[in-house]
């Protein structure tokens, strides 16, 4: 494999890792606050649809982003209502959210655009354009060396949301570990009764966390339909919400490790797309194995054979103030 194709794989790794990273951090906020969320997939999907539809209707990519965030927030509100206010089963609510998104996007998409569930292709101003970082060499200019190549062809030339996603990692770390809100958020996921005793609203904190989850899922979806591709396709998230969930477990609910896990799973995705079956001489690794690897790795991590993934202690349980 030559340097150019190596750089290309790294480049698509970053592209493919971006929606995972947004969704993974989204899940991190929610689950750290004690609300399990297996509805990341649904929120991404509905956001991708709303973003593409609004961007097509208004011609503005930013209206698209707003619509995506709005749609994801609405779905987050359903999940919050079910799992915080009505103390329902958070897992079942997540399953419902996923189906709701999967059905609603196709029903609305088909009736609005008459294209069998997809939006029309987005042209120039309706999707994100790529940003060239300062001093980055234009593509096609060869021989920049390894570092120059990484800077010009891997780090440079992505849409703004990619950099936003990367910036969200230190931001999340700072919010969680260096602010009062973050401390309370983590506490509410471990021991909500203690937070309540301190006079802080458990409900308020959990809704705030679920709201942040909605915003980040909205960005993930907006990047799917306006950055990674040009328009919405039915079921376009294709299980990425679940991979993000897997990455979250893989990272043991910590922001920097989430970045690593998402890059790893993005790399696996990039490799699977580029190589199909990999012949390593002794035997051939089938593409399906590469595709299933994130899930297999997550099961191994969950099994506790390589370190142990311990979820937030109060995760999945609604908080009852008085018994």
């Amino acid at each position, binding site marked *: 494999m030559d340097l150019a194709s190596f750089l290309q794989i790294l480049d698509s790794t970053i592209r493919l890792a971006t929606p995972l990273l947004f969704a993974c951090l989204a899940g991190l906020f929610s689950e750290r606050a004690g609300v399990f969320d*297996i509805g990341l997939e649904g929120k991404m999907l509905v956001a991708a649809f709303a973003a593409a539809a609004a961007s097509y209707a208004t011609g503005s990519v930013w209206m698209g982003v707003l619509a995506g965030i709005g749609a994801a927030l609405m779905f987050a509100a*359903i999940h919050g*209502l*079910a*799992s915080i206010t*009505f*103390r*329902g*089963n*958070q*897992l*079942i*609510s997540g*399953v*419902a*959210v*996923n*189906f*709701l998104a*999967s*059905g*609603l996007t*196709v*029903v*609305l998409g*088909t*009736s609005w655009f008459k294209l069998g*569930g997809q939006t029309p292709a987005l042209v120039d101003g309706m999707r994100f354009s790529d940003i060239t970082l300062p001093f980055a060499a234009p593509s096609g200019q060869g021989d920049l060396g390894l570092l120059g190549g990484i800077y010009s062809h891997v780090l440079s030339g992505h849409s703004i949301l990619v950099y936003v996603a990367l910036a969200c990692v230190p931001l999340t770390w700072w919010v969680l570990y260096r602010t009062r809100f973050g401390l309370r958020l983590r506490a509410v996921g471990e021991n909500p009764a203690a937070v309540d005793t301190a006079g802080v609203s458990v409900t308020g904190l959990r809704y705030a966390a679920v709201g942040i989850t909605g915003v980040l899922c909205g960005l993930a979806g907006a990047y799917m339909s306006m950055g990674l591709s040009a328009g919405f396709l039915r079921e376009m998230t294709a*299980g990425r919400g*679940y991979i993000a*969930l*897997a990455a979250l*477990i893989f990272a043991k609910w910590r922001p920097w490790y989430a970045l690593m896990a998402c890059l790893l799973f993005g790399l696996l995705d990039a490799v699977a797309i580029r190589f199909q079956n990999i012949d390593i001489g002794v035997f051939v690794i*089938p593409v*399906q*194995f590469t*595709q*299933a690897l994130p*899930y*297999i790795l*997550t*099961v191994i991590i*969950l*099994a*506790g054979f390589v370190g142990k993934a311990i*979820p937030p202690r109060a995760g999945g349980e609604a908080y009852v103030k008085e018994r």
Partner: protein
Amino acid sequence: MDKLPRWADVVLVPLICLIIAFVFCGILIAAIGQSPLHAIWIMIDGAFGSTNGLGYTLYYATNFIFTGLAVSIAFQASLFNIGGEGQATLGGLGVALSCLLIPWPHWSLALIGSLAAGAAFGAAWGFLPAWLQAKRGSHIVITTMMFNFIAYALMNYVLVNLLRPMGSMDPASARFDKAYNLPKLGDILGLVGIPFSSKNPANITFLIAIALAIGVWALLWHTRLGYALRAFGKQEKAALYAGIDPVKITIYALLLSGGISGLMAVNAVQGAAHRLVLNSVEGAGFIGIAVALMGRNHPFGIVVASVLFGFLYEGGSQLAMGTTIPREVITVLQALVILFTGALPYMVQKPLEHLFAKFGGAK
């Protein structure tokens, strides 16, 4: 103290949830400029208006009875198995291998072979998540979900690289021997003089599903294992004190659940498709969740809910053919049913309890 009379809890709550879900879907259909009443008429006419439509309804219902019972038996032990999709996929592999590799002399023997293979493969796919939950504390919802994706990748590999006939581009196995085709429901009803169309895929598996529902009922409420399952689900610590082994119960529950999911493939793969295709389950594993919730976790309720979802499925296809309403309206309805019955039970239950406390004081 039960605040609601039993009939209200069993009939009224699911019914109200269903009505709310229908109203929401009606609003959605009206919002996209179609007539909800016309839509529901097309669905009813399509699914029940002819014995052929009814056959399709029952065919889908058969799938959902299996997956619904599978979800429910794990629910009884307080385990949420969302891996029905993967377990049924593997069940399909078992059925296909049994039909392709073993020269059965008669369809009835082939059926027994398929039942055994489907259940065994499905149960095997449920075993590891159960073992991990019981021994290592890995959350079963996450592991079964991961196993769904692993099953899909595995099936993709097996179909493309191993089972695909030479020269075929389709990721599907060869067709099974015609002699293994199961008797259609129409032919069986014809024997007792009831005219019923045979052009639909409803087959003898429907009767097996009904028998299984009775079997599950008997197992849960009339055997030691069933008692242990329910005790474990209701109060883990008390069950432990009573000498019920949590590891064993978790594994038994998932083996049963996975096995029943796997049986679904007998209907879909041997009964209808006559070959193994990539997505043989078509989401039935997930509908099992809705069916189990709607049927209040009772085998009888599950059969009723399955027929309802069978109707919705067949009705949805009719909608897609007869109108411009896409069949995904049914997915929305399914989501709402799961939401209201599973995640928002207090929203319906609490106001009802108030009503009964106010007016139904005769208890």
